[in-house]
C-alpha cells in the first residue's frame, strides 16, 4: 500500500468542515474550498477557474426542480392554498401529526420503490401541502403552537419526505444508483444481477420505515405531553363553524 497518493487535496475537506462549523456563508465556504483544493492539487489558477465553470454548467439541471414550480406554488399560496390545506385536514378528526406523516412516509417510500420518485419533493409537496396539513392537524388539537414546536414539526415534515424518498428509490431496479453499483462491480470483475442488488436493499428499507415511524409516533406523544394540558381552550376555529 505504499503507492504515492497525494494527500494534499484533503486540505479541501478541512476547509469545508471548518467553514461549516464556524457557520460562514456556505456559498463562500464552497468557493474557497474549490480554490484551496485546486491549489493543493497543484492546478494552475486558470484550470481551477475552468473546472469550476465547467462543473457549474454540467450541473445546471439541479436547480430546475426547485425553481420551476415556484411560480405555480406562489400563485396558489396567494389564493389561499395553505389555508385550505389546513382547513382540509381539520375536517379529519382522527388526524394527528404522527399519523399523517406515517401515512405520507408509507406512500412516499412505496411509490419511490415503484420508480415514481417525482410524486413528492420539497417545493411542490412539502411546502404547499404536507407542512400546512401537519400544522393544521396539530393546531386542531392543541391550538396555536409555540414557535419551537412549530419549527420542529416543519423540519420533521421535510425529514419524512427525504427518508421516504431515499430508502424507497434504491430498491427500484431501474434507478440510477443500481446501475451505478452494477457497473462499478462489473468493472471490478464481479457480475451481479441488478435485481439482486435491489432485492437486498429491502431489509434496510423496511427498518428505515419502522425506525422513522416509531419516532413520528413518539413525536405525537411528546406533543400530547407538552401541550395536551392546555387543550381546554376550544380552538376549533372557523373549521367547524362553517360546515
Amino acid at each position: 500500500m505504499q503507492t504515492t497518493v497525494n494527500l494534499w487535496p484533503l486540505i479541501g475537506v478541512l476547509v469545508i468542515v471548518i467553514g461549516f462549523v464556524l457557520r460562514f456563508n456556505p456559498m463562500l465556504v464552497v468557493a474557497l474550498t474549490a480554490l484551496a483544493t485546486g491549489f493543493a492539487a497543484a492546478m494552475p489558477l486558470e484550470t481551477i477557474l475552468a473546472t469550476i465553470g465547467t462543473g457549474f454548467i454540467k450541473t445546471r439541471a439541479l436547480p430546475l426542480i426547485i425553481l420551476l414550480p415556484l411560480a405555480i406554488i406562489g400563485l396558489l399560496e396567494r389564493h389561499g392554498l395553505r389555508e385550505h390545506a389546513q382547513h382540509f385536514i381539520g375536517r379529519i378528526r382522527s388526524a394527528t401529526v404522527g399519523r399523517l406523516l406515517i401515512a405520507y412516509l408509507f406512500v412516499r417510500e412505496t411509490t419511490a420503490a415503484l420508480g415514481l420518485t417525482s410524486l413528492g419533493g420539497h417545493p411542490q409537496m412539502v411546502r404547499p401541502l404536507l407542512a400546512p396539513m401537519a400544522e393544521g392537524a396539530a393546531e386542531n388539537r392543541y391550538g396555536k403552537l409555540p414557535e419551537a414546536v412549530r419549527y420542529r414539526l416543519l423540519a420533521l415534515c421535510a425529514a419524512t419526505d427525504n427518508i421516504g424518498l431515499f430508502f424507497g428509490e434504491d430498491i427500484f431496479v431501474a434507478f440510477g444508483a443500481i446501475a451505478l453499483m452494477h457497473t462499478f462491480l462489473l468493472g471490478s470483475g464481479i457480475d451481479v444481477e441488478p435485481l439482486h442488488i435491489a432485492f437486498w436493499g429491502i431489509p434496510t428499507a423496511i427498518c428505515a420505515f419502522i425506525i422513522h415511524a416509531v419516532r413520528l409516533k413518539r413525536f405525537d406523544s411528546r406533543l400530547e405531553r407538552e401541550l395536551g394540558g392546555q387543550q381546554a381552550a376550544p380552538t376549533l376555529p372557523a373549521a367547524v363553524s362553517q360546515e
Partner: protein
Amino acid sequence: MILSIQYLYWLAGAILAITALMTFTDKNHPKRWTTGLFWALFSLVFLIADLLPPVWVGIGVLLMALIAGTGGVGLGRHGELPPKKRQASAQRLRNKLFIPALAIPLVTVIGSVIVKDAHIGGVPLLDPKNVTFVSLGVGCLVALALACWLTRDTPMQSMRESRRLTEALGWALVLPQMLAMLGLLFNDAGVGKAVAHLTTAYINMDYRLVAVTVYVVGMALFTVVMGNGFAAFPVMTGGVGVPILVGVYDANPAVMAAIGMFSGYCGTLMTPMAANFNIVPAALLNLPDKNSVIKAQIPTALALLLVNIVLLYVLM
C-alpha cells in the same frame, strides 16, 4: 428529440432574468443592486453559459459566491393579498386549489413513465437523457395554465410570486449546484483517493466486524464530506468492499452493495453538503435554523446505520 432540456434552461434563464429585472427596478429594495446582479448572473448561467469560455463562467461563479458571502442577496417587500381576501379566495376555490399543485407531480410521473418512449415521426418526443426534468418542465407549464385559469390571475402575477419565493430562498437556491460542482472538482483533484488511502492504510481489518463497520461507517462519513452517496460508493467499495469484504470474507456482493449504498444515504441525511435535501427545505419552510432538517434526521440516520452494520454482518 422534440422537447430538449435546453428549452428548460432558457425558461429558467428567462424567469431569473425577469426576477433580476424586477429587483433592479424595485426602488424600495434594501439591497437592490447586489441582489439584482446575483440573479442576473445566475440567469446568464442558463441563457448563454455554454457559449462562454469556462474560465469566465468560473469567475462569474466566484463573483456570485462573493455577493452571497458578503450578505448582498436580500429580500424585497412583496404585496400579499390581505388575509381576508385570501380566506375568501380559499373558500371559493376549496379543493380546486389542490388541482394545479397535484398536476405538477402527476404530469411528471405520466411523462417519465408512460410518454418516455414516445416518438413522433421517428424523433423522440422527450429528451431521452433528461426525461424526468423535461416532464417536470411540461408539468409546471400545465400547472401554471391551470392555476392562472382557476384563480383568474395573470402569468405576470405568477412571475411576481416566483420572484417572492426566489428571493425568500436566496442563495440556498444556488447552493446545491455549487456543491455538485465541488464534487466534480474533488474528483479531479483526487480527494477520494486520498480518503480511501487513509482509511485502508491505518485500520486493522483482521476482524470481520471491524471490516463491516469500517465499510458501513466509511460510506456514511465519506458521504457526509462529499454530500453524495454516489461519489462515496466507488471509493469505499473499491478500497474496502471488494478487496476485503468480498475478497477476504467472501461476502455476497449484492448484499454488500445494497447495504453500502444505503449507509451512504444515512450520511446524506446528516450533512449540509446535501443542500438540495437538507438546506433548501429549511429555507423553503422559513426555518430560522438552517440545520433543523438535519437535526430532525440524525436520530433516524444513526439508528439505521447501526441496523446496517448488523444486517451486513448477518446477511453477507
